[in-house]
């Protein structure tokens, strides 16, 4: 059994198709990410999987339970840390956690033990009895995630877990999420529009745009689907023709572009090809002055799949704004 299975999930708000027949499976213990720009349908998918809204068509099972027929069962096994901070500013961190414990029917004694554990895990124990209004953004987010763990969910839904946080705080949140997976074996379904986040955190990534899944795979395989890494070499003058032929013959090399003092080699698993490239050049009497290797990022993957950059919303800005407004209106 997969932790989550979705078949042709679709959600239509008026004229806007927010999610268009997405199918995917998330395995137990996996960190699965939806990567896409704002308005791609990420939160709408989470809302369907967490039983907040019903799909227009298609079906999904969460931990084996149907999201439409058995929403109560689904709610028992999932935790949600939404995009917004929902922890209560006027209560203390401890009180927020105990409130969640009560909502999930965790007995008081048991809850006290778990709250202590989770506050330690999230490194918030020193602030447990302080009102949340005195917390920093990162602390609030940690508390939010902590609250969604109180009932020991099988699957944790994280909607844009580091939205609006600074670089260090984001890295810290990533660490907490990794700890969760390692120490508690929680399955994680997350959404993000940060490439580095998907790359760093997710075992597998679904790239979603305009409600459609464009590709699902591990970040490294998605990146290698671009066709390889780029090895850029600055060299002494070379005899283009001969060298070019020789480099192309090396295993793993996909393409070679030569300049008078520059060679750009596109190769699968560049780090393994790089030594062979350098020794081939030296054998032919070419000296190498400088080497740079670029791994393709998920940004390039998104670009090659959609023809757009993740942040580059020029030209389609109006369309995206219109979608976002329609989806937000329906959601609230």
């Amino acid at each position, binding site marked *: 059994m997969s932790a989550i299975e979705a078949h042709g999930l679709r959600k239509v708000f008026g004229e806007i198709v927010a999610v268009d027949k997405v199918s995917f499976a998330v395995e137990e213990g996996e960190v699965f990410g939806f990567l896409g720009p704002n308005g791609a349908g990420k939160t709408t998918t989470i809302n369907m999987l967490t039983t907040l809204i*019903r799909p227009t068509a298609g079906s999904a099972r969460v931990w084996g339970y149907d999201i439409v027929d058995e929403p109560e069962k689904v709610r028992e096994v999932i935790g949600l840390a939404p995009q917004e901070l929902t922890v209560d500013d006027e209560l203390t961190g401890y009180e927020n956690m105990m409130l969640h414990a009560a909502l999930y029917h965790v007995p008081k004694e048991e809850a006290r033990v778990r709250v202590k554990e989770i506050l330690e895990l999230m490194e918030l124990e020193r602030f447990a009895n302080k009102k949340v209004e005195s917390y920093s953004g990162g602390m609030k987010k940690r508390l939010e995630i902590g609250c969604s763990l109180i009932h020991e969910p099988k699957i944790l839904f994280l909607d844009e877990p580091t939205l609006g946080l600074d670089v260090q705080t984001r890295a810290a949140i990533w660490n907490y999420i990794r700890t969760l997976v390692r120490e508690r074996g929680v399955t994680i379904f997350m959404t993000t529009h940060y490439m580095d986040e998907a790359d760093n955190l997710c075992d597998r990534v679904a790239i979603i745009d305009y409600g459609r899944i464009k590709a699902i795979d591990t970040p490294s395989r998605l990146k290698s689907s671009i066709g390889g890494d780029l090895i850029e070499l600055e060299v002494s003058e070379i005899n283009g023709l001969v060298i070019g032929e020789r480099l192309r013959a090396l295993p793993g090399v996909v393409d070679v572009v030569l300049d008078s003092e520059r060679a750009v080699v596109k190769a699968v698993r560049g780090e393994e090809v790089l030594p062979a490239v350098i020794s081939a050049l030296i054998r032919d009497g070419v000296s190498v002055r400088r080497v740079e290797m670029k791994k393709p990022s998920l940004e390039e993957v998104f670009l090659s799949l959609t023809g757009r950059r993740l942040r580059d919303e020029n030209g389609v800005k109006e369309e995206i704004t219109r979608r976002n407004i329609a989806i937000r209106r329906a959601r609230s």
Partner: protein
Amino acid sequence: MIARASEIGAIASREVKKWYRSPILLFMTTIQPLLWMSLYGKAFNLTGLFRIPEDILKQLPPESTARFAAIANEILSRFFGASDIDFFSYIAVGMMGVILLFTSMSSGLSIAWDRRLGVLNKLLVAPISRSSIILGKVISAIIRGVTQSLLVMLIGLALGMRLRVSGPVEFLIAVLALALLGASLSSLIISVTIRLKSWEYHIAVSNLLTLPLMFTSSALYPVTLMPEWLKTVAAINPLTHGIEVLREALLLGAPLNSQAMLGHLLILTVFASAATLLGIYLANVALRKT
């Protein structure tokens, strides 16, 4: 059952904690009924109209004054329930009911805020009954309202309000009436506003409802003084019945078997149950998103 009770308790206690931790808010919602009773109640002395001024008293023969006093007392008892009631005490008890109107109005708004802040989604994702969310709000409105009402009573007593309570059971009946009034009014406002998504609308609706509900009740003047059409409106206004129970129990010293008191209490109970069920039903429909 126990699970439901603990869910409701958790939701209600969150609201109550937030309320008693912001004393300014508590103070602000108490001040308006206090203004009504101390300004309107003291200045607009309706019962004082029936007292014969000293100089007129001296000019009249004793038998005329006695007759006038008898007539005046008869009028006062008919309209206000007893001839020796002062208008300030009359209004003050009315305000003990009206403050529940003010505190209940925030129930709808708190749902709007929860929706806006994403808290409502968190509640909806939790394995709790949908009705627990609404009942939690209603219970918290009752706790807040009853406490503030008793606070108004204490301040009223300090300002010279005279109560006549026949016993502890009658006092508990008054508290029960306050609770039922809180349930009626908060369920009513939730029913009306549950579909409104922006908090601006909530404020507009509660402003729209507060004054009409107060003026069509017996908070400021007796029902017997009203024209027929207004009497009909007052009879379906839960505030009237709540306030009448309070007046019977606290002001007139009605015994436990007082027909008037129990009658109003019964109507109030029916109203509170119906409004709460309606609120739960409408909220269930509204929260079940498509």
